[in-house]
């Protein structure tokens, strides 16, 4: 077996391993966790840590799998297919930056670290107004995913990064519910005690954006599969509605769009693994994230439409996929933001 084939096989193993947390087709756990606090299951989170997923994308020298982002997007795709609410993407973002004991605790599943970097809606800019002076952090962070379940926040400040315990004095957390049953936290830090940490979030943000695209890829795949099943099962006018050509062509279009999304995400992952030039990586991520945001909403909207009335009930699982897409499509940058960034970053090709 050549190297490329071996790599493909390793990716397949990652994909298969996701079944540990994503029981095929059964969304009862997902339903039960909606609109609860913290919106995910701590036991499952520990299981995820035992499986080594938060560090999957790290180099082998740093305790990772060596499969890089190509491995991580395969995993994120599978978790998306299962609508898994546990905060793997933010935690992996933290793992990219942390080291020493905080990293070990995070990876052991004993201490969940969630980055809190955003101060404006629809922004990818970790530059902050938040200040860190004399070990005290002051500022306000928005849209922190699953913040209610964090033990620590990894906060970006003007002076650099800092770790703040969630329970520290001066940390005020307000939770807003999201359409998928999770939460966004708004966190106000008022002279909260904080431990400075070296490094920056540049690379971690790109990885989180791409992993979110992969999560959207997975949820779209499953939404489409459920819809195909429905088309094959639902009978109207004496025939399965899958036999109606207009719906068949729509399904073909959804398939093409999904494959474009897949190719986009996977090629961006390869770029992140093989390219060191940050603008090139950013262009690839923007391309994938813009595509994923648009296409996941397109596919889940069409999935509802193709289900007809039943698709508009909360009982039907298909709606869970739409709601998840609504929340994740704009995380780590909306499609317009990424298109604008792509236009600014990507070189024009002159070879055509």
């Amino acid at each position, binding site marked *: 077996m050549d190297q490329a084939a071996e790599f493909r096989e390793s990716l397949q193993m990652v994909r298969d391993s996701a079944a540990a947390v994503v029981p095929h087709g059964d969304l009862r756990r997902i339903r039960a966790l909606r609109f609860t606090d913290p919106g995910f299951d701590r036991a499952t989170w520990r299981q995820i840590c035992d499986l080594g997923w938060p560090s999957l994308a790290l180099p082998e020298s740093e305790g990772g799998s060596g499969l890089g982002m190509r491995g991580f997007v395969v995993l994120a795709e599978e978790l998306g297919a299962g609508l898994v609410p546990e905060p793997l993407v933010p935690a992996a973002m933290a793992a990219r930056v942390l080291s020493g004991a905080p990293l070990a605790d995070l990876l052991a599943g004993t201490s969940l670290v969630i980055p809190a970097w955003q101060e404006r809606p*629809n922004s990818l800019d970790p530059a902050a107004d938040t200040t860190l002076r004399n070990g005290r952090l002051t500022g306000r962070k928005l849209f922190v995913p699953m913040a209610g379940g964090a033990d620590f926040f990894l906060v970006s400040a003007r002076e650099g990064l800092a770790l703040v315990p969630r329970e520290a004095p001066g940390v005020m957390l307000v939770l807003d519910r999201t359409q998928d049953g999770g939460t966004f936290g708004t966190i106000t830090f008022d002279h909260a005690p904080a431990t400075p940490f070296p490094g920056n979030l540049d690379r971690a943000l790109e990885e989180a954006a791409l992993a979110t695209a992969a999560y959207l890829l997975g949820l779209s795949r499953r939404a489409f599969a459920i819809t195909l099943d429905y088309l094959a099962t639902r009978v109207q006018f004496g025939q399965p509605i899958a036999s109606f050509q207009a719906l068949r062509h729509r399904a073909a279009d959804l398939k093409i769009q999904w494959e474009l999304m897949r190719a986009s995400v996977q090629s961006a992952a390869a770029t992140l693994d093989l390219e060191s030039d940050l603008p090139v990586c950013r262009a690839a991520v923007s391309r994938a994230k813009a595509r994923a945001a648009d296409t996941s909403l397109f596919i889940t*909207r069409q999935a509802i439409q193709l289900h007809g009335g039943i698709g508009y*009930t*909360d009982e039907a699982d298909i709606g869970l996929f739409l709601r998840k897409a*609504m929340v994740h*499509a*704009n995380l780590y940058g909306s499609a317009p933001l990424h298109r604008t960034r792509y236009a600014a970053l990507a070189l024009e090709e002159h070879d055509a």
Partner: protein
Amino acid sequence: MPDLSPEALASLDEPAFRSCIREFLVANYPPALRNPPKRLHFRDTKPWYLTLSRAGWLAPGWPREWGGMGLSAARQLVMIEEFERHGCARFNDMGITMIGPLLIRFGTDAQKRFFLPKILSGEHIWCQGYSEPNAGSDLASLRTEAVLDGDHWALNGQKTWTTLATDANWIFLLVRTDRNAKQQQGISFLLVPMDLPGITVRPIINLDLHDEFCETFFDNVRVPRENLVGEINRGWSMAKALLGFERLLLGSPKQASYALARLRLLAERMGLADDPSFQDRYTRLRLDLADHKALYEDFAEQVRRGESLGADVSMLKVNQSELYQRITETMLEIAGENAGLLEPMGGNRELHPSGLFIQSRPTSIYGGTNEIQRNIIAKNVLELPG
């Protein structure tokens, strides 16, 4: 305050009529109920229902002898326009729009005398039982069955999408009364009190996490024989005959128009009001809405001239629902992370992109999916063979 009785209104010209309605709404409509984000229950709309009832304004289309306003289709449209403009909530109107006209046209005198006053007084609140889990767009598959057993119909089956059934104390049904008849034959129209033994109502939580819809189950329900309306096995023909200019309303620009104004508000909030790429998209949507309004006006003009609408009115419904959806899709796209919030942004009901996005979804499904509407256009408007 001028005289607002139906008799006095009849003598006014259109502008005066219109301004009377505006004044009435300003004076009487509960401000808290303007543009509600979700369909209201009868507990909320009852005071308004009774206000209309007292004014004699509850049933614009019924003849005056039965307590209606006796308005022409043109005048009814004016009323609807003004109610929409004011942001009036839809109340439990099935008695007014469906059962009243049905009984007036096909009912016995006894039925009219019994039911119509109780609709106007708010004593009877009606819900509709047409759809079934396996008979949505396909009425030939209707399975809820009524079998005559002495003086009663023995009723068995299940209806779905019985909107606000939990509010209603009466339901009207299409039921199968002849198993061997083909297609839409063998279906009758039956009136059923909701408190009969054997009826179970189960609210369905919808994608908007609201309990507007219900499933209603009938298990050996015994319905008095005289509750059948009109001829037996002619239920579907009667139901169809009632489809009047109301089909126009499915294509009203109201929802898209409301959504577009909210889109602009959202864009301002997101700092995009002058963003050229947003402007480009917004202008296209404005143009789409303006042209939709022009097309709507052509159909409304037909109604005003007293002409009946053809199958081509399906075009309005398809276009409005898809425009409305494009607008709310644009909202999601520009809202950033706010697109995922369950509640309105900052508690401002006007800034709720995810809510409007979800509410726009079923408009291409209910009242006949847009796929069915396109079938109709191809067959009945374009007359394509096959």
